[in-house]
């Protein structure tokens, strides 16, 4: 049984299982950032190629599809 981690996503407290990547935060709404012309974008390729799943974590941009969730992460959509 994996322990649950507590993160904050856009200001809300969320729990995800240890070992999950940040895509675990995308429940229902896959929007991660806005495109050059302001359109909503989310993960397309799921494997670190398209760069569309980028989220702001503790002030830095990371890819949600390949970044492990960690206790206390402050995650924001771009």
């Amino acid at each position: 049984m994996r322990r649950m981690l507590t993160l904050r996503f856009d200001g809300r407290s969320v729990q995800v299982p240890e070992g999950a990547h940040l895509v675990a935060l995308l429940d229902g709404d896959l929007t991660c950032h806005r495109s050059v012309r302001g359109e909503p974008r989310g993960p397309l390729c799921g494997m670190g190629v398209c760069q569309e799943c980028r989220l702001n974590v503790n002030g830095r941009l990371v890819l949600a599809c390949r970044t492990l969730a960690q206790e206390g992460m402050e995650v924001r959509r771009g």
Partner: protein
Amino acid sequence: MADRILVIGGGPGGMAAALAAARAGARVELVDALPTLGGQIWRGLRAETAQGREGRLLRDLTASGAEFRLSTQILSFTEPGRAVAQGPEGMLSLRYDRLVIATGARERFLPFPGWTLPGVCGAGGLQGMAKSGMPVAGQRVLVAGTGPLLLAVAAHLRGAGAQVLGIAEQASLPVLAGFGIGLTAYPRKLLQGLGYASVLTRVPLWTSTWVEEAEGDDLLRRVALRRRGRRVALEVDLLALGLGLVPNLEVALALGCARQGGSVQVGAFQETSVQGVFACGESTGVGGVEKALAEGHVAGLAAAGDLQGAAIHARQLLRQRAFARQLEASFALRRELSSLAGPGTVVCRCEDVRLEELRGYRDGRDARLHTRCGMGPCQGRICGPATETLFGWEPNQPRQPLFPAPFRAFLTTDPGSRPDPQTSE
């Protein structure tokens, strides 16, 4: 001192190569950008839960003495025998005597109206993200595209609690049937096919059917299918789109390896045109797990200098490559799929360049200079295969750094001492 072998990519091919090389006495370093081994098809391999063939391979590899550097992205090759990478602790200088490329493949995407809506994903990509914890239970999913991967994805998503509305296969029924008969020559794959059939009872499989449009305001809400000439609308939450795989060639091309069509050219022992550089798995031609394991084994032995062992195992490679060719021929994409985009459809997602802005350019470089198509964060990896299909443009090779890296990654001086190696868990 034993030779240092750097294996780039921790999927089935890379794992097999690393194990073979380690057992042959080489010092092996296996690098992957993901936090776990397994690549895409065995995503998220964990020692506590891994079973079957992949579990055995993981345990053998962990016991072999090979070092793992996970969450580590190869960025550039600045001199022979040295790769620069970004690891979780900072920049790394990875020195090697020989190199095995096992960088796998990514999915092909062809633009169509609405494909940029959040909720539209690659089929393998959605399966991978579900394995990485993305919630899919209770979500309505349409699986569409072409090839056996669609069955695997539909089965996995169903097992994860998703409501799989159907599988839309763009190939026709006679083509599918022909492939089914051909499969009897490859028993393991036939078993796989039968296994999926039982999991997918009551999930409709529509042939000669493809997605024409995705719709929704800010999120995916509906798709429009073209089914036997008629347009059919479906309410969905997620679209898993699998239009085939494109080998990841960036590392091979950065090293100067010769290509053979869209793959890395290799000889009988998986050697590339560059001395000391080997390649295996999807990068030498899309052919699935079996091919990757077989080629990885040979590449690892050959890289470690065990040519006798490599020769013995190289014999079974011909069968794997034959299957790969049959797969590609059977599931060729219909012409209609390259005519779905309208003038206002985004083609380059990174820079928001629309189809109408790309008309009239001689080639990809011309278009890139005028519109920025291909100059964004994906470095042309998504739009390259698309514009190749749409306009016949040769995809550009990403310049180094091969992947986006933060500026601070280039501010350190040559790292003399390496941090402790990361191990998989």
